[in-house]
């Protein structure tokens, strides 16, 4: 095989391979979160975060607007303090409600933001005051059984 043919094939191969990596980066993964994209941080306290993981999406009206950056326990209140990084371009009112939600019964856990009507906006380092904790299935079932038992006793 002549050297030019060989070079051509190697060129095609490398182009295909780099194309595949780009495809994985852009079409499959979301390259936007690469490195440290511009954004600002807000915090929220929850009684229970359920199965929330680092890098879990933060959504508003179903659209990803940021990611969970860190989760820690408040030593005084014993609440979970979640730091979220919100991408630039998305602003939320000061009375926004943050809830921990699950997509489907067993789907991924994410944080949903519901904006209110306040005229003030959350700034970098701002705190979401109103939160709704994760629904813990065991507690829910326990509650359901308790209610059922109580209802049965009354009848």
């Amino acid at each position, binding site marked *: 095989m002549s050297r030019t043919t060989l070079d051509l094939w190697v060129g095609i191969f490398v182009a*295909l391979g780099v194309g*595949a990596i780009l495809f994985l980066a852009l*079409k*499959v993964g*979301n390259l936007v979160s690469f490195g440290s994209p511009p954004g600002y941080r807000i915090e929220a306290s929850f009684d229970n975060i359920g199965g929330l993981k*680092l890098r879990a999406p933060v959504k508003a009206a179903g659209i990803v607007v940021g990611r969970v950056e860190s989760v820690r326990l408040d030593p005084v209140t014993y609440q979970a303090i979640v730091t979220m990084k919100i991408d630039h371009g998305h602003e939320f009112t000061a009375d926004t409600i943050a809830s921990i939600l699950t997509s*489907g019964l067993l789907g991924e856990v994410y944080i949903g933001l519901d904006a209110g009507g306040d005229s003030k906006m959350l700034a970098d380092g701002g705190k979401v005051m109103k939160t709704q904790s994760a629904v813990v299935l065991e507690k829910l079932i326990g509650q359901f059984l308790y209610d059922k038992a109580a209802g049965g006793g009354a009848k």
Partner: protein
Amino acid sequence: MLDGALSAAVALVRRLGAATIDGVTRLGYATRFFVAVVAHTPAAFRRLHLTLREIYFSGVLSLIIILVSGLFVGMVLALQGYDVLTRYGADESLGVLVALSLVRELGPVVAGLLFASRAGSAITAEIGLMKATEQISAMEMMAVDPLARVVAPRFWGGVVSMPLLAALFSTLGIFGAYLVGVKLIGIDPGAFWGNMQSAVDFRDDVVNGVIKSFVFGAAVSLIAVFEGYDAKPTAEGVSTATTRTVVESSLAILALDFVLTVFMFHGVHA
């Protein structure tokens, strides 16, 4: 009777000791070999056409098997994944399942195993035959260092080829899953791609996958050139070395995969 059992036990322990010493010696030898290959790298890159030639042999010639395998692995993943996911009503997560499996694990690992048996064995056999037919000796006597002329280009050819092959494997796998999931089963294409994109992270998943495939490529290439260079210069020696390459490469890939996975994803399961 007791005497016999005792001497058999001693023989067993002795064999274990011999195997350990042998293994450690070979590992040390391989490490020195690796250092020597890296030291000869500038020489290999100065004449780039030698390395390009090896990229052709280990990369381009592995394309068909990688592309076809990737496509089928993706299609099977989609069928099986759909079957399980649909029981939980989560069939829209099919794209997530397939993409994460491929990008994080199956792409690098399966492509690495295929690469070891397709390109690694060929490299070992080629270098082993060059040794058996005294071509390596001839090169040394012509004052040309075979490490720079023969070994280093093959090593780097493999190192360059492997991440590209793994990425192509994953891409074709995702395409295969798209064909089965969206075109055949009828999952909504928006959900398929959208869920995939929101779940697959570029740095945590794609970049880690590429790092894995790079490490596997280096490991397989090193084992292949080492076994070839270390082969006994006979027909039997070359065939033994070729088998060793495939076995050792496969074990190395699986072991390294475990280690890398521990290091890469330990922070994610918060």
